[in-house]
């Protein structure tokens, strides 16, 4: 492997090989972690300042939709992991179906999110609305955090769907195969990361009330 890396031509990522690509992805996920970390920091500070307001505000969250979305996202991580195993065993067709399933579940997650947001906005629950400005300060901060954190998370889901879509095409064309699947594996890492963030968002906004 090392020999091949050294003499690799200059185009593309051929310099690095498998391990290098994994290194790069893990480093990238560290930056993502810290990016979300800033938001979790804000959440903890405001939760400790306005514990009672957070309690009241969180009562409005719909635990059913939240739980359904959690199950959907965890299942989609499962199909993602299976799709990588399928490619490693040489079954590109199965892998493509599993990736399509992951994308479908990501979309269902977003649709649920859309109804959740839409319902709240319809009832005037959003930052700076006349309704929220009349309530306690902590309640509005709770919903500001809710929209920003789930919003940025949803943005990551959308990006993930796009990337998995690209991987799906590469898997069907055979560019991803049992000999070269690091792109798919890195996509999987990204998708699991997005899933993990939700696993923390779910209790913070829906369960701990």
């Amino acid at each position: 492997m090392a020999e091949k890396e050294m003499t690799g031509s200059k185009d593309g990522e051929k310099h690095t090989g498998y391990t290098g690509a994994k290194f790069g992805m893990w480093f990238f996920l560290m930056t993502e972690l810290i990016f979300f970390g800033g938001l979790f920091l804000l959440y903890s500070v405001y939760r400790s300042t306005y514990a009672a307001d957070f309690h009241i505000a969180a009562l409005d969250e719909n635990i059913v939709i939240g739980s359904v979305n959690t199950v959907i996202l965890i299942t989609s991580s499962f199909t993602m992991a299976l799709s990588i195993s399928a490619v490693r065993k040489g079954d590109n067709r199965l892998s493509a179906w599993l990736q399509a399933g992951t994308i479908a579940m990501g979309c269902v997650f977003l649709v649920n999110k859309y109804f959740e947001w839409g319902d709240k906005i319809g009832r005037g629950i959003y930052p700076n609305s006349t309704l929220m400005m009349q309530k306690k300060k902590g309640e509005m901060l709770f919903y500001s955090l809710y929209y920003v954190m789930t919003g940025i998370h949803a943005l990551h889901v959308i990006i993930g769907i796009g990337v998995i879509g690209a991987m799906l095409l590469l898997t069907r064309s055979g560019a991803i195969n049992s000999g070269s699947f690091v792109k798919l594996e890195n996509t999987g890492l990204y998708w699991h990361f997005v899933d993990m963030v939700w696993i923390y968002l779910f209790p913070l906004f829906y369960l701990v009330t």
Partner: protein
Amino acid sequence: MNTFYADPGPRRGLAAWMMSTDHKRIGIMYLAALLLFFSIGALLGVLIRLNLISPGTFVQAHNYNRLFTIHGIIMIFLFIIPGIPASFGNFFLPLHIGARDVAFPRINRLSWWLYLAGAVVVLESLFFGGGPLDTGWTFYAPYSIQTRTNVSMAVFGVFILGFSSILTGLNFITTIHRLRAPGMTWHRMPLFAWTLYATGWVQLLATPTIAITLLLVILERFFGLGFFDPSKGGDPLLFEHLFWIYSHPAVYIMVLPAMGIISEVVPVFARKVIFGYRVVAYSALAIASVGYLVWGHHMFTSGMSDTARVVFSFFTFLVAVPSGMKVFNWLGTLYKGSIRLDAPLLFALSFIFLFSVGGLTGLIQSAVATNLHLHSTYWIVAHFHYVMFGGMGFSFLAALHYWFPKMFGRMYRERPAKIGWLVFFLGFNILYFSMFILGYNGMPRRYYDYPPQYFTGQLVSTIGSWVLAAGLIIIFRNLIVAFYRGPKAPDNPWGGSTLEWQVPSPPPRENFEEIPVITRGPYLFE
């Protein structure tokens, strides 16, 4: 000739450069852009000084706020932070460790495009919306949320620049882990590579904090979230914390690679192995890690518990220790060396002097009690410029003179370089040392006007800015002449022993015909 300037690819002209994934081409393009932004920033700096000898004659009060803000944003986000890693780091890291390119050449090109895009967005903010922003480069909330000037766009530009910085750091770390030539053990790496490694981690782990913070400022301005707005229950201090959690480590993004360059230049011109190689290498890692824990010292007067202030003060003193170690090791390298006082060494020696002044004054203000007196005065401005401009700026020029023959294949004239250095160095000290005195006597920073007792100091400082500008003009005139008409440079004009000097000047397309096998450390002189 098979130099990297001759490209056999399908594209011609500008596209052949913009689409190139060659780390050397990307480094050269970064260098050109950085020098452009540095010139704009320096010009704005001269304008700031010009206003201060006669407030109101040249610049109106509100425009003065915009002037120092744009000066700060251009210098910090477009020049100093990308600075050395993006230009010299890109060009020399693969050469230093015996690789053909960085680990992810296409991501490297992407980060160059992001840098350009970020720069364009930042500059656009000057002309659209409410016009140039007036918040100071720190974008402190709640003012940055209230002002009508175009904060959103400028901040979005900085957000994009952050991505560029993260990707460069990610690339360099992976490159150093994965692409070292056979036999290039960690302890045989040139120290410049070590500092880029430490810098890469800071870029990677600190930058996302400012990304999310600036994103929140934008969202706050559009949707009124209230995170940093006290009237909605938010806390502006949180903005300051989040801002400095990045922006203090960012100081080490700026200065660590600068220290790496000094560690390259000093042994070559003292003809001696670096004194205490491992100490110099590990102290870079120490600075990078302790540098994370000191951000609170920017906020001693903003409202923090006494415990927090004491802890932050302690860590600030602590981070000076590895920096001091480096200074002693450079001096130890010079001791009994056969010193050749060429232009690169002159710049490197002035780095050691100016950085020491900057570092020692930093210790003075990191003591909580004195900080209360000095906070937000010209003292801070002086300290900051000694560390950043005297540190990173002089090191950048040391690198430019040291590597100019390798990058462009031509030699510059030594005499004008030395004269330029002298004028620049004198101008620098006249300009910024007067600020220490002004600040100690109570002149606040960012003020447009001042009582008459500060006039003499302000005048001396402004004269210094002219001398400094003259020095810069001499230096760059000399280099531009050399670029077009200089005699051809030999492969190894300084007798350097690191790998970049073993290849032709300018280096061939894939750096090495055969990847070298490394059997010795980086600094070996006869």
